Structure formats: structure tokens, C-alpha cells
């Protein structure tokens, strides 16, 4: 092996690599076509070769659960249980305020001492918060969102969900910020945490649900902890990135005026990075709301439970109403938190002394409404709880719409589905399943080597071999097939939409609303109508994956196009480019690395949807995780989860390496 890396001498390496690729592919094809009778083990792993790791993991978990202790002082379970107890304190407090009221006693014997905030009070508070954070428009939006919850009879469940979000988000943001700062300060910590973050983001939640239940107990708190694990990684990553992007002039200034390390971080760097940090907060909120359905399976209740229960009785309308309540909560929380972060500080006041009311108009008005509506609630319960008789519902109309489509258009839809299935999906699946694993591993290594170097090659091959020896190779191939097809389709649809949204402003506003909805509306809601129209199977799973994973393809494409340097565009205009040429020859080329990152994220989201696709009967790794969950098999779930994570990591590293190469070639690299 030659030590020269491809970046240093691209000209020399371009051609030999091509030759190597051609030869390898040729050998592989021969191997694939004729190798089976001679090397059966390469096509199907002998049973005896499978690793017993999954049993060891189960044993280790049982040991942790039953025997492990800290120096004999307290057991591991006691430790985790006490964490749960600590988290439960603020949760119970918030729940008391917005849902149950302050109680004495527990269970059905509890007596309410103080009622919770009435719907009027909550809506007014978010209204005031919106006005305080930005303007009347935001105030109306926030109040409108919460009114939806009251009017459509979602109030009770929404407040339960909101309570767990109110606790999970600050914990996630706080931990994310801390870990991010640590990684920024200490390079070794950065190195250590990076793979852990990869795993947290890619191991499906179902894989660690059982251990969480066992260690943290069966309660909303367990759900909050699962939510935090899932939602924190983007915050860490964005924190690191944001701190690195703080202009050096600022940090120099900080040093010059004699800031201590602590002051430098909290007074200079964090404030100046706050805009980027808010992107992280936004992601934590969105991902937390993503977890609502899964959280409800382990005791969180709330909107997630409503969605599941209504779809079990095939009440699509009720499912959509509850699902939209999650979307509405997400939009309100997101817009409010964005506005709060961008709020200019109050001008320093120097006039005559003001009354309390002048100084705190919003807080005092809020307090007044809380008290008045609370007292009014004692007179007539409708002031406390939105009267049930006033609740609106779409009733059976959603079911009727689906029925109409089903009866009138089923044959056409079925024809499209069948054509795609027979001509694309099934052949691709068969092809992947027939590949010999040593060949695939070799190709991965070659790809890693030619994109970056031997380190990446070794990493890809090792991760691939792990999957081989778990005996989950066929399921992994089905995973690759399902996600691969979905990602291709998502890109084919998403990138043009992203281009349109970047080029034409009104389109962007509509697109943003749609992608926010797609990201937070639980996919379960639209999965059942899709099942009705396309039956259980891979095609339905593919639609669900595409619907969810298309979001980053759109977002990154339009982001990339919008951020192409003005100078270059101007240069294009001056040299007489038509708008089309401007787009294809300049903008798209320069935005390519960004678009590739978008595709990368699309792959990640596609993989994270696997667990949901297991619910419509696919036979991939997601199903393996799901089976492990329902059997409470910690080891089996962990292994299958790791396989998914490793596929994600391989894809991520290869694409990032590819994007870096393009950047270097375009001269965009830093």
C-alpha cells in the first residue's frame, strides 16, 4: 500500500483508482455469479460462526440489574432509581400546575387542594409570552395553537405531554451545552464523545427502551429519560460547532480585557454563539416531540397514547386530531423559543421611577388572569376546563375521505405500486440479498480507501464484519435496500423542492410549514391510511420513510443554494449567464457539499424510521429490534440496534469524506 493520501496527489491517484475499481468490480461479479457452489459460506454465514455477543450483553445487563453495586454502598439500580426520583420532583410540580392541580395523597384517593391553571390562563400566558418575546403576531399564533388544543378536546392529554416536554427540553439542552463546552475545551473528551453521540443518534430508541424501564422504573420519568437520550446529541454537536465559529477577534478581545476562562466562556463565547445554539434548542424541542408516541408506550401517556389508541380502533380522524395537537405544540414551542432567543435586550431605562405595573406589565397581567380565571372556575367549571359539549371534532370525515379514495382510486394506485414493486423494489432486494458478504466488505473497504484513506477503509470493514458475525446480514441487506430506495426517492423529490423553495420566496413559506408538519406529525397517523391504500408491506414502509426523511433533503438544498456567495453569483450575471445557467453551472455546483450533507441526514432519518416500518411488517433490522423489545431481550435489541447504528456510521463517514473531497476540489474547504 502506498502511503500517499489521495488529497495530496489527486492527479496521480485518479487513474490508478479507476483501474482498481474496475478490476475489483469485475472480480466481484465473477465471484457473485459463479462462486456460490464453491464458497457457500460467503453467501450464507454458517451457524457456528455467529457471535454469542448478544447473550453476553443480556447477562451483563442482568448483572447490573441484580448484583452490581458501588463499593457495596448502594446498587446500580438504586442509583438509577434515585436519578428517576430526582427528575420526578420537577415533573410532578409542572404536572400539578398545568394538569392535575396540587394534590394531597396519591392515586384515586388524592384530594385536590388547588386546581391547575385553567385553559384561559394557559392560553393567556402563551399569548403574553408571545407579545413579550416579539410582537402581537407571534402572540396570536401561540394563542391560536393552544386554542386548537382546547377547542378540539385535546387539552387534557396535551398538558400531560407538555409537562414532560417542559422537563425534558431543559435537561437535554443543559446536558448538551455542558458536553459541548467540555468537548470544545478538551480535545480528548471530544474524541471520546463523538462515537457515543453517533450511537445515541442512530441506535433506535426501541433498543434501549427495555433497559431504561428496568433501571428507571415504569413511569413518565423513564419516558423523559429516553427522550433526553434521543434528543440531546444535536445540541452537543451544534454547541461544539457554534463555539468553534465564534470569531477569533472576539475571543482575543476577551483575553485582552482579562477575562478568566469562565468569563470568557459564559460572557463572551456563549452569548455570541447564541443564534447557532438556538438551532440546537429547536432540534431538541422537535426531537422531544418526535418521541411522544414511543414515550407513551412506556408510561408517559398523553397525546401519544391517544394517537395509538385511536388508530387501533381505526379512527383516522381522531388520530389526525391528536397528531396535529403534537404538531401545534411543536410549532408554538419552537416559534416562542426562537423569538425569546432573538429578543433584543430591553433598552436601559433612565426615566423617572416607574410603578410595578409599568415595569412588569406581562407578568402582572398573567398573574391577574391566572387568579381571576381560577376563581371564575369555582363558579362555573367551564372557566376551568373547556366544556366538553363545545368541543369540535372532524368526526368521521377523515375516514370518509380515505374510504372515497379507497373505493374510487384503489386500482390506479395499486397498478402504480405493483409496477414499482415488481420492476424496482423486488429485483433490487433480491440483488442485495444475493451478494456475498466478503465482496461487500471488500467494496466498503475500497470505497473508504479511495475517498479518504486506509483509516476509513479499516473502520468501514470492521463495522461491516461486526454485522456479518451477528448473523443479521440478510436483515441488514433488507435494511440497506429499503433505506436505499427510500433515500433515492426522497432525494429525487426533495432536492427539486428545495431548489424551488430557495429560488422563489412564497414557496419557502409553504414548504417550511409542510416540513415542520412532516417532522413532528407522528408517522403512525398517516401510516394507517397508507396501509389501507397500499396494503402491508415494503411499499407502505417506503412511503412512510420517504415522507419523514425528505425533510433534510429539502432543507439542506435550499439552505445551500441560499448561501452561495453573492460575489460568485454576480460574476455569473456579469459574464452573461441565463438564470438556468446560473442555477446549474454556479449555484448547484457550489451548493453540492451542502446538498450531500442533506442526503447524509436523509439517510440518518431513514434509518431512524426503521422501527416504525417494523410496525407495517417489514423484515429488516427494525423488526429485529421490535421483536427484541416485545420479548424484553436486552442483548438481542442491543445487537440489532448496533447493526443499524453501524450502517448509519458507514454511510455517514463515506458521504462526509465524499463531500470533503468535492469541497477541496471546489476550493471551498477551510
Amino acid at each position, binding site marked *: 500500500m502506498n502511503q500517499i493520501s489521495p488529497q495530496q496527489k489527486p492527479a496521480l491517484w485518479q487513474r490508478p483508482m479507476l483501474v482498481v475499481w474496475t478490476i475489483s468490480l469485475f472480480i466481484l461479479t465473477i465471484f457473485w455469479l459463479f462462486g456460490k457452489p464453491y464458497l457457500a459460506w460467503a453467501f450464507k454465514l454458517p451457524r457456528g460462526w455467529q457471535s454469542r455477543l448478544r447473550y453476553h450483553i443480556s447477562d451483563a445487563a442482568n448483572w447490573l440489574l441484580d448484583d452490581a453495586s458501588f463499593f457495596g454502598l448502594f446498587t446500580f439500580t438504586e442509583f438509577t432509581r434515585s436519578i428517576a426520583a430526582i427528575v420526578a420532583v420537577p415533573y410532578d410540580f409542572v404536572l400539578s400546575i398545568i394538569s392535575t392541580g396540587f394534590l394531597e395523597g396519591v392515586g*384515586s384517593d388524592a384530594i385536590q387542594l388547588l386546581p391547575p391553571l385553567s385553559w384561559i390562563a394557559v392560553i393567556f400566558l402563551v399569548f403574553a409570552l408571545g407579545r413579550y418575546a416579539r410582537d402581537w403576531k407571534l402572540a396570536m399564533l401561540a394563542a391560536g395553537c393552544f386554542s386548537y388544543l382546547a377547542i378540539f378536546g385535546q387539552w387534557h392529554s396535551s398538558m400531560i405531554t407538555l409537562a414532560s416536554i417542559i422537563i425534558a427540553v431543559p435537561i437535554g439542552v443543559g446536558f448538551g451545552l455542558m458536553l459541548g463546552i467540555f468537548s470544545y475545551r478538551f480535545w480528548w473528551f471530544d474524541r471520546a464523545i463523538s462515537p457515543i453521540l453517533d450511537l445515541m443518534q442512530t441506535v433506535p430508541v426501541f433498543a434501549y427502551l427495555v433497559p431504561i424501564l428496568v433501571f428507571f422504573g*415504569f413511569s413518565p420519568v423513564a419516558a423523559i429519560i429516553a427522550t433526553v437520550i434521543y434528543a440531546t446529541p444535536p445540541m452537543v454537536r451544534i454547541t461544539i460547532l457554534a463555539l468553534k465559529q465564534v470569531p477569533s477577534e472576539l475571543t482575543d478581545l476577551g483575553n485582552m480585557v482579562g477575562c478568566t476562562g469562565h468569563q470568557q466562556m459564559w460572557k463572551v463565547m456563549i452569548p455570541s454563539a447564541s443564534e447557532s445554539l438556538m438551532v440546537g434548542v429547536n432540534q431538541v424541542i422537535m426531537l422531544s416531540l418526535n418521541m411522544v408516541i414511543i414515550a407513551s408506550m412506556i408510561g408517559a401517556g398523553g397525546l401519544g397514547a391517544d394517537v395509538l389508541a385511536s388508530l*387501533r*380502533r381505526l379512527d383516522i380522524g381522531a388520530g389526525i386530531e391528536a397528531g396535529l395537537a403534537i404538531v401545534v405544540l411543536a410549532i408554538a414551542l419552537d416559534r416562542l423559543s426562537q423569538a425569546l432567543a432573538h429578543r433584543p435586550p430591553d433598552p436601559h431605562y433612565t426615566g423617572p421611577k416607574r410603578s410595578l405595573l409599568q415595569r412588569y406589565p406581562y407578568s402582572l397581567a398573567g398573574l391577574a388572569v391566572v387568579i381571576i380565571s381560577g376563581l371564575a372556575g*369555582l363558579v362555573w367549571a367551564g372557566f376551568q376546563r373547556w366544556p366538553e359539549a363545545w368541543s369540535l371534532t372532524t368526526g368521521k370525515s377523515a375516514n370518509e375521505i380515505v374510504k372515497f379514495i379507497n373505493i374510487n382510486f384503489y386500482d390506479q394506485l395499486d397498478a402504480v405500486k405493483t409496477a414499482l414493486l415488481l420492476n424496482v423494489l423486488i429485483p433490487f432486494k433480491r440483488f442485495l440479498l444475493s451478494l456475498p458478504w466478503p465482496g461487500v466488505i471488500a467494496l466498503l473497504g475500497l470505497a473508504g480507501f479511495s475517498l479518504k484513506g486506509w483509516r476509513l477503509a479499516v473502520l468501514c470493514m470492521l463495522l461491516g464484519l461486526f454485522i456479518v458475525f451477528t448473523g443479521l446480514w440478510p436483515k441488514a441487506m433488507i435494511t440497506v435496500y429499503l433505506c436505499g430506495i427510500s433515500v433515492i426517492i426522497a432525494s429525487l423529490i426533495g432536492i427539486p423542492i428545495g431548489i424551488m423553495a430557495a429560488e422563489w420566496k412564497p414557496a419557502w413559506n409553504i414548504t417550511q410549514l409542510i416540513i415542520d408538519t412532516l417532522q413532528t406529525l407522528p408517522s403512525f397517523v398517516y401510516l394507517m*391510511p397508507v396501509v*389501507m391504500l397500499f396494503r*402491508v408491506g415494503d411499499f407502505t414502509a417506503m412511503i412512510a420513510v420517504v415522507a419523514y426523511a425528505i425533510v433534510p433533503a429539502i432543507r439542506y438544498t435550499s439552505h445551500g443554494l441560499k448561501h452561495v456567495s453573492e460575489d460568485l453569483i454576480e460574476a455569473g450575471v456579469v459574464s452573461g449567464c441565463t438564470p438556468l445557467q446560473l442555477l446549474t453551472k454556479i449555484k448547484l455546483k457550489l451548493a453540492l457539499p451542502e446538498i450531500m450533507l442533506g442526503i447524509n441526514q436523509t439517510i440518518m432519518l431513514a434509518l431512524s424510521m426503521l422501527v416504525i416500518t417494523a*410496525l407495517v411488517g417489514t423484515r429488516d433490522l427494525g423488526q429485529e429490534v421490535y421483536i427484541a423489545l416485545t420479548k*424484553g431481550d436486552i442483548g438481542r435489541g442491543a445487537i440489532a440496534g448496533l447493526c443499524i447504528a453501524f450502517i448509519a456510521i458507514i454511510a455517514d463517514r463515506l458521504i462526509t469524506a465524499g463531500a470533503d473531497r468535492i469541497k477541496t476540489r471546489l476550493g471551498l474547504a477551510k
Partner: protein
Amino acid sequence: MKYKLTGLIAGIASVTALSLPGLADVESKDPIKLTLHDWTGQFITTRIMGSVLKKAGYNIKYVQADYIAQFAGLKTGDLDVAMEIWETTGREAMDAATKTGKVVNVGETGMKAIEEWWYPSYMKEKCPGLPDWKALNKCAEAFSTPETAPKGRYLGGPVTWGGFDDERVEALGMDFEVVHAGTDAALFAELESAYQRKAPVLLWVYAPHWAPSKYKGEWVQFPKYTAECYNDPKWGTNKDAKYDCGKPRGPIWKVAWAGVQKKWPGAYKAIQKFNINNDEMGAMVGAVDLDGKKVEDVVADWMKKNQDRWQSWLK
């Protein structure tokens, strides 16, 4: 508000005192945690049990939990009682849990689970000879889809439900391909869709559930289940294979955390005695899922009409 609440509590107390003299003292005022899953029948059984225990003076709490994942909580006492563990879908998890000694089987609920291949009545025209399973092979084509043709398509339950359908098809030499739905919801979404179009469909349906009362149809008749059929290959038409018969019709069980008996002996006894049958349950599930009534109202109604019955559970 407070005045009203006190009144309400006094009211409940007086009712309890009138109807159940001597039962107001309970062993522990800690809440008994009953699990709720995601299907209506289970909501009803659990809320009936909860209401009865509440009338006896126990403190109760409903906790939302996943059907199988709940065993982790039942083992530790985070959860106390689960009212519906189905023989066919939950047996394995239940046995694994009771083997640890931390969870106990509190006996049958009185309901019998039926789980079998099912088709809508309109399929009888296209496939005369039904409900006998042998007729299915002659009209496998009628049940086929492009992906499975020429074989028929049978939509089985989620793989996690077990049921041995793949083995059954093999053992009985049926020209069918088993496709597994991932969830209960997906299963019935397909049925609803096919029923609307009067399209061919053959799938796993179970009772008590709202589907058999909403849609007209029948269960396929396989050779009757016996224990030997599942254990002994020699049994039945296929001498070399097990599972050449229908599915067992098993009871639906109640389970509890092992500590319940000690902590709330009276409640434990009542849970043991809890008994309800398929027809009653089917009617109540229908009232909720098809007529749109609220679970709480249906349960309250049952409580009113069956006072003698539930009071006898508390004796």
C-alpha cells in the same frame, strides 16, 4: 369547588358504607397500579376492576404501559396488576415473567380468546366450500395479489404474536404466502380497506374485538386444535409435521406483581374472582368503538347493572 369535592367524596363514602359494610378498611392505602394498553377491551376490563376496587375503598391508579414491555414493571412492583394477558400473544412473556417468581398468574378472566384465519362473508361466493380449510387451496388464486401470485395471500398477525402460521401453511401444504402485519392497527386497516371495496382478503382476526361484530365474516375451520398437534408430528394429516391444525382457543389471563397478595390481600382476592365473558365484552367493546360511547360511561353502566356480581367478588 372544594365544597363540591367533599360532597362527592362523602357521597361515594356513604354509597360504599351502605353497600359494603365492613369493607371500608383496606390493608394499604398505597395506590394499586393497573396498566392500560391500547385496545378498548382492555381499557374496559381494567376500568371495571379499578372501579370495583375503588368501591371497596382501595386507592387505585391507571398507568399507560406497553402490553409486553409492562412485564419489566410488573417484576419490580412499579406496576401491580395487568388485566389481560392473552394465551396466544402473551403466553411466552407471561411464562418468562412468572418463572422469575416476581410475577404471579392470578387466573383466567373468563374470556376466551379466539384467534384464527378469517374471511368476510362475500368471499364465500368466490370460494365455495368455505369455511373448510381444504376449500382454500382450490381458490388460492382468488386470494392472491401480484406479489404472491399464484399463491394466495394470508395476512398474519405481527411476528411477535407467534401463532405458527408459517408452519401451519407448510404442514398443511397450503398454497398461501404468509405476510405479517406489523401491528394490530395495520391488520385491521387492511381489513377495513378490503371490506370497503369488497375485495378478497384472508387474515388473522381475533375476538373479543370490535371487528367480528362490525364486519360480516367467518373463521376458517381447520382440524381442531389439540395439544398433541402442537407437540407431536405424527398427529394429524401430515405425519411429519407439527401445527397441522387450527389455533388453540385460550383463556385471557390476569397477572400481578408477586407482592400484591401480601400488600392488599383483599384486592388480590377480588382480582382473582373477576370474571366476565366474551359476549358481554363484545357488546361493551362495540358500544365504545362502533357507537362512539365513552369507556368511562360504558363501565359505569356495567357497574350499575351488575352490582350483585361485583359485590360478590369483594366477599
